[in-house]
């Protein structure tokens, strides 16, 4: 199991389109994945789950991935967050 703390830096936070990108990215990996923030842990492969976090800009979320491809999955998710979900230049 791998754990990474990821800052949400895009202006709109984990809104619907960003969440959809995250979920679509993770669906390509076999590992299970959760995100947690403010004491709530959700399935990171579920759009409504991730949106339940209501994580806005400036929030930090904890990613946990578990499975054979967890390293690649964590890297890919961290990169997506770092790229601000490709929303801003």
């Amino acid at each position, binding site marked *: 199991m791998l754990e990474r703390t990821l800052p949400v830096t895009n202006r709109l936070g984990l809104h*619907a*389109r960003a969440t*959809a990108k995250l979920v679509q990215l993770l669906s390509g990996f076999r590992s299970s994945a959760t995100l947690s923030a403010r004491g709530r842990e959700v399935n990171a*492969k*579920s*759009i*409504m789950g991730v949106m*339940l976090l209501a994580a806005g800009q400036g929030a930090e979320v904890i990613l946990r991935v578990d499975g054979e491809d967890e390293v690649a999955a964590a890297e890919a998710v961290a990169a997506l967050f770092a790229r601000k979900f490709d929303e801003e230049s």
Partner: protein
Amino acid sequence: MAVGILLITHEGIGSALLTVATRMLRQLPLATEALEVPFDGDPDALLPAASAALRRVDGGHGVLVLTDLYGATPSNLAAKLARLGTPVRRVSALSLPMLLRVMNYADLDLDELPRVAAAGARNGAILDDA
């Protein structure tokens, strides 16, 4: 194994949901169409158009028909559609959370998708007091 998705709704609902879901997901993983029923629409008169839409989204593994309001004309039309021969399952209370969840489980077959769709609508209803 891909199921087709047909939205049968009142005017202005199905196509709007489809547009928003497509914007969010960029590309829908399942063949999807929206059929909107006018307020004074006659289910029998609409059946040929609905049947044509059903055949367009059916890839041979059946069609999940999502209606907006159980018991209303669109869902009555969906009931008629289900008797034409193509494997059809129906779920009512179509919403954006339901549609997104169905697309997120695109590899499931027609027997499993109705439960997933219903859970999408249920889980999407949140008492937002936070």
